[in-house]
């Protein structure tokens, strides 16, 4: 059991993370990039057109992974917020700093692709559908995390306030998840549920799965890169950063 505690303590050390994370970052970039390349080429170029929507449905392979990932990033941020509030782990705070802007970008990507997809299929880009609205709200939550951190003058106090806001904001995630079933309007109900046979044809499922996995890996790489930048920024002026900066 000793190694678990040991890893936990090490994971809390920015310096240890920085020393060991470079191969992970590069690996996730490469794997994620290849998966996205494969999934998108397959989905956009080789999958047969859908019966009702024709070719316009192909944006699904970009839209669905982004929408899914946006929620996942928020949950990760909220868990990091809880960890920071309870154990005051420095890395948890840095993770929120690094992941919040990434989450905002992914949420905006999901919204933008949703609007583009809505114009040919629904006939209008924006509908007051529960899931559309709650995704937009998710974007505002990410924005709020970033804005609050910049508004609170002391970094330590800002970190705790942002962590608390992230934890409180997590109540929005179930609203997003179940709003589709609560008041369905135009947006289709989820096609893939754990434990059920997917309501989506297998030809479409495989490239979609590749892209979801690829998005996860690639964004994890981006977050690690952002984390590394924040660690260097935070520890600027310390001995180990100076050593790392000087070419040997």
């Amino acid at each position: 059991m000793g190694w678990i505690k040991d890893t936990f303590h090490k994971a809390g050390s920015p310096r240890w993370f920085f020393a060991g994370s470079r191969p992970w970052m590069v690996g996730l970039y490469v794997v994620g990039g290849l998966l996205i390349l494969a999934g998108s080429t397959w989905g956009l170029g080789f999958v047969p057109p859908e019966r009702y929507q024709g070719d316009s449905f192909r944006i699904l392979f970009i839209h669905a992974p982004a929408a899914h990932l946006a929620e996942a990033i928020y949950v990760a941020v909220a868990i990091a917020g809880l960890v920071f509030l309870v154990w005051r782990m420095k890395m948890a705070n840095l993770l929120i700093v690094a992941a919040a802007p990434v989450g905002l970008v992914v949420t905006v990507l999901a919204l933008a692709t949703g609007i583009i997809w809505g114009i040919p299929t629904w006939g209008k880009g924006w509908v007051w559908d529960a899931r559309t609205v709650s995704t937009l709200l998710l974007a505002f939550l990410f924005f709020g995390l970033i804005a609050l951190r910049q508004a609170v003058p002391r970094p330590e106090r800002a970190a705790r306030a942002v962590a608390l806001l992230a934890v409180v904001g997590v109540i929005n995630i179930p609203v997003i998840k179940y709003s589709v079933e609560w008041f369905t309007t135009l947006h289709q109900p989820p096609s893939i549920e754990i434990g059920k046979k997917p309501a989506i044809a297998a030809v479409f499922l495989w490239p979609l799965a590749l892209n979801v996995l690829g998005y996860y890996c690639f964004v994890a790489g981006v977050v690690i890169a952002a984390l590394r930048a924040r660690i260097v920024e935070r520890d600027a002026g310390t001995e180990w950063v100076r050593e790392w900066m000087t070419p040997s």
Partner: protein
Amino acid sequence: MRLFLTQLRRDLLIAVRSRSDAANPVVFFLLATLVLGLGTGSELGPGAIWVLALFANVLAVEGVFGRDHEEGTLEQLIVHARPLFPAVLGKLAAHWTLSGLPIAILSPLGALMLQGSTAGASILVVTLLIGTPTLTLLGAIGAALTIATGRSGLLVAILVMPFYVPVLIFGASASAAATTGDPTSFALLVLGALLAASVTAAPFAIGKALAISQEH
């Protein structure tokens, strides 16, 4: 309970003795009704009243801790009140008595001005009576988080309005259904559930946020 009542009495007394401050939320609500009516000119549903009540709430709640923070009484409260949540609830109850309650009572007047009749106004009042305390509780979390930033009106609005949305949806849908005579009990029950959940959970988040704001 004593902490709750003491805090409630103190805040109401302060509000009564500084008269114009206490009237601001209601005056804002009426003025906003006027501006909206003039600007749109058409007949609006009770949803418009709900939006105005929400704006009045978010503007009012922003300053709920401001004066106490400047005086230092907030710090004393956090140090001395054990447990903290009855005092927080007392403070918010006093705040709501001067913002949410009068707006709910005056809302039929707003409905008369904007929709031209008072059809379904009793349900509108009920939804506001159940819904606005939830808004105040959720808004106070944002207000407590931003104490340290000084002037922060827009920031509080940005932080808390996403959380207001479920309350707005059910409040507006119940009062819209009431104007046409449709059943409203489901939405009213959900509003009640949201209130019960926020009364139990929000004071702890507010207490935590207040504690963070007073750290040195």
